[in-house]
């Protein structure tokens, strides 16, 4: 079962529908027991960082996410959900994230040259990072370099070079996806990215728990 964490932020209809479409057993939940029993976890999110981070903590879900990330269970943050996995955000002030991925969240404004519209809304191409043997991350095993996915955001993750598994170009290079062990983050919306998005979700659903259980421990080192 896939648990989509419900902490009162965002519209989860499409995410749930897309996973069901793939034939997955999926539940939108804030029940710690269900999340602990899940094979994989998705942390969604739209809206403002400060508000979402506060809700994640006050609902007790931040604690569960931290605990579950350490088990090596596949976990994916989407959009603001991804940004929450990082150490901090400078969206209207300075706010702490979960720190499961090293890096910070900063405005696109200032990174992209003048004339680039904010938010970055629309379909943009993924530039996949490859390891020494030329392989892209397993999250992208069913897609190709240059495939398009759908973005909607005004802030992006930076100082996370070690975790970046894909970038996208918007006047500047913006982080499109990150991974640290089995903790994944997608800035774009796979559930809104047509066939390509579905293939990314399918790949995520095939990632197995990392029995080493080291996930998340590397962050911040």
């Amino acid at each position, binding site marked *: 079962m896939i648990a989509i964490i419900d902490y009162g932020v965002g519209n989860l209809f*499409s995410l749930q*529908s897309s996973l*069901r479409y793939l034939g997955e057993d999926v539940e939108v939940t804030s029940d710690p027991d269900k999340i602990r029993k899940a094979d994989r976890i998705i942390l969604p999110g739209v809206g403002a960082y400060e508000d979402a981070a506060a809700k994640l903590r006050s609902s007790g879900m931040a604690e569960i996410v931290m605990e579950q990330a350490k088990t090596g269970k596949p976990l994916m943050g989407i959009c603001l959900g991804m940004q929450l996995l990082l150490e901090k955000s400078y969206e209207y002030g300075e706010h702490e994230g979960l720190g499961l991925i090293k890096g910070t969240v900063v405005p696109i404004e200032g990174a992209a040259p003048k004339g680039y519209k904010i938010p970055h*809304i629309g379909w943009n191409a993924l530039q996949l990072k490859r390891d020494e043997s030329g392989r892209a991350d397993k999250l992208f095993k069913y897609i190709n370099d240059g495939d398009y996915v759908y973005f909607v955001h005004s802030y992006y993750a930076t100082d996370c070079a070690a975790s970046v598994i894909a970038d996208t170009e918007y006047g500047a290079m913006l982080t499109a996806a990150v991974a640290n062990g089995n903790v994944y983050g997608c800035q774009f919306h796979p559930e809104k990215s047509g066939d390509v998005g579905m293939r990314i979700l399918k790949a995520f659903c095939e990632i197995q728990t990392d029995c080493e259980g080291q996930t998340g421990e590397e962050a911040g080192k």
Partner: protein
Amino acid sequence: MITKRIIPCLDVKDGRVVKGVNFKGLADVSSPVALAEYYTKAGADELVFYDITASNEGRKIFTDILTETASKVFIPLTVGGGIGTIEDFDRVLKCGADKVSVNSGAIRNPGIIGEAAKLYGDQCVVLSVDIAKIDGVYRVFAKGGRENTGMEAIDWIRRGVADGAGEIVVNSIDTDGVKQGFDIPMLKAVCEAVNVPVIASGGAGCVQDFIDLFEAIPDIDAGLAASIFHFGEVAINDLKKAMADAGIPARL
């Protein structure tokens, strides 16, 4: 590089798409769900569902159709038509809409833009504006383009963006239905005034009209049309290919 978007708009009344012809492989042309799936396969970058139902019963059918579509089609979905309150936003967002477009509702109650943006985020709020040039000035029209509000259009759009509209759909009454191309001067004026995505609507009659639009206004983000897609005059996959061939960034 971010691509230029092509957006078919489906007018839905009592659960059926109002305009439409037969496509190969599409048995029921007036089924919004089937047409949405068809367009998605053809390469549509986004879909707009426009609710032109007047009755409460029709509303219920509309949201049922929206739910079904959002369970099968995984590209961004904007809903418009009859949006006047936060409850309307809530109703369609719960059924799978990603963005909600307000038009006359914002003219009646401009506060709704800021209120909705605060609740759901700027990215969720689309301000749709019907504009005609009257005595050399762009004016905002209400009630589906029937009523001149007297408001200056560029001011209205600037104000909407300041309040939190994350995207603007600009529909030119002067070119709508004429099929002689988009209203380039008017769209240019809007693009120069705001720094959020602008979607052009009204006037497309053929593939070249879209090419002309994107070449004349590099800042325009998307082209929206209805009947030319439904009547098969322009096939979305042909259009996207023609855009790519012309050097316009397009998702193929």
